[in-house]
């Protein structure tokens, strides 16, 4: 039996995943490990990050506790991480409130983690020359970057900025043979959406707007991210992949 060549495999690749302690980030780490990647996972919560580490297939993975809302946290991450083939910037937070109630600290918090942190992470890795030629960067943006839902303005604006930043990265990193793309998930069943300002009743009503009749599962977003990280997407850069159960057909 010869070795099966499959461009979706991630063998020999080292992938950094931020926000890996839960939700989509954890699913990305687990699915990457199953495809043979060495995963460097980072998050703020030591216990939950350890749970992700324990769930990974294979050997040699690394977990780094870092608060990416702080420049020191980003420097620590970039210093401790070895040279990578892929970066999945996935860490994200939500504040849901109507415009009339915005506070400066809401904006700093959400943009700090969803937008500024990924920008500074890429900068930190470029500065240290820690992204290999042929590498791939994926940002977890959101369907909210393109469509408005009442109360979601800060989050949606932060993700729209992230999607646009992705295009600038694709332009500037093309000559280094580094690809940069994003995914735009619709609503996904994670801790981010339950127990907050939106009631379970309103969530149930919202699901009826999805042609496929349900919210996504974290691994269904992970598979799209893996396509963009893998060599299967070798000629894809500057694009944003919508994965939303058909929500955007409206």
């Amino acid at each position, binding site marked *: 039996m010869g070795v099966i060549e499959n461009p979706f495999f991630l063998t020999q690749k080292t992938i950094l995943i931020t926000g890996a302690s839960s939700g989509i980030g954890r699913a990305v780490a687990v699915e990457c490990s199953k495809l043979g990647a060495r995963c460097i996972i980072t998050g703020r919560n030591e216990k939950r990050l350890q749970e992700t580490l324990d769930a990974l297939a294979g050997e040699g993975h690394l977990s780094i506790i870092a608060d990416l809302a702080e420049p020191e946290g980003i420097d620590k991450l970039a210093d401790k991480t070895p040279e990578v083939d892929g970066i999945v910037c996935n860490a994200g937070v939500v504040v849901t*409130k*109507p415009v009339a109630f915005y506070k400066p600290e809401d904006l700093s918090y959400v943009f700090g983690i969803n937008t500024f942190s990924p920008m500074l992470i890429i900068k930190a890795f470029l500065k240290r020359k820690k992204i290999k030629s042929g590498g791939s960067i994926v940002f977890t943006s959101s369907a909210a970057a393109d469509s408005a839902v009442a109360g979601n303005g800060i989050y949606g604006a932060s993700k729209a900025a992230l999607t646009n930043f992705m295009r600038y990265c694709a332009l500037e990193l093309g000559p280094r043979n580094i690809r940069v793309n994003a995914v735009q998930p619709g609503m996904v069943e994670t801790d981010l959406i339950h127990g*907050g300002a939106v*009631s379970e009743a309103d969530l149930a009503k919202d699901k009826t707007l999805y042609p496929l009749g349900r919210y996504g599962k974290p691994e269904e977003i992970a598979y799209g991210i893996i396509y963009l990280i893998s060599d299967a997407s070798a000629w894809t850069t500057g694009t944003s992949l919508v994965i939303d159960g058909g929500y955007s057909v409206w």
Partner: protein
Amino acid sequence: MKTLDEFVVLFAEQFFRTEPATIKADTVFHDLEQWSSLTALSVIAMVDDEFGVTISGNDLHNAVTVEDVYKCIITKL
């Protein structure tokens, strides 16, 4: 600490196409024509600003009258 009457006024301020005087402590607010996810989010944000308390979407869903919302806030103070 705001009284129930003061809370009712603040609650009514989150509606823009409903006559404020029609909203009282015993109003079944889910039945109001203008009640929506936006008004719900506005009430939650107002409660956070005025009382320093976080009520959830589920708390609001489970409340029947405006006074029920006030009582929910009191239990969280």
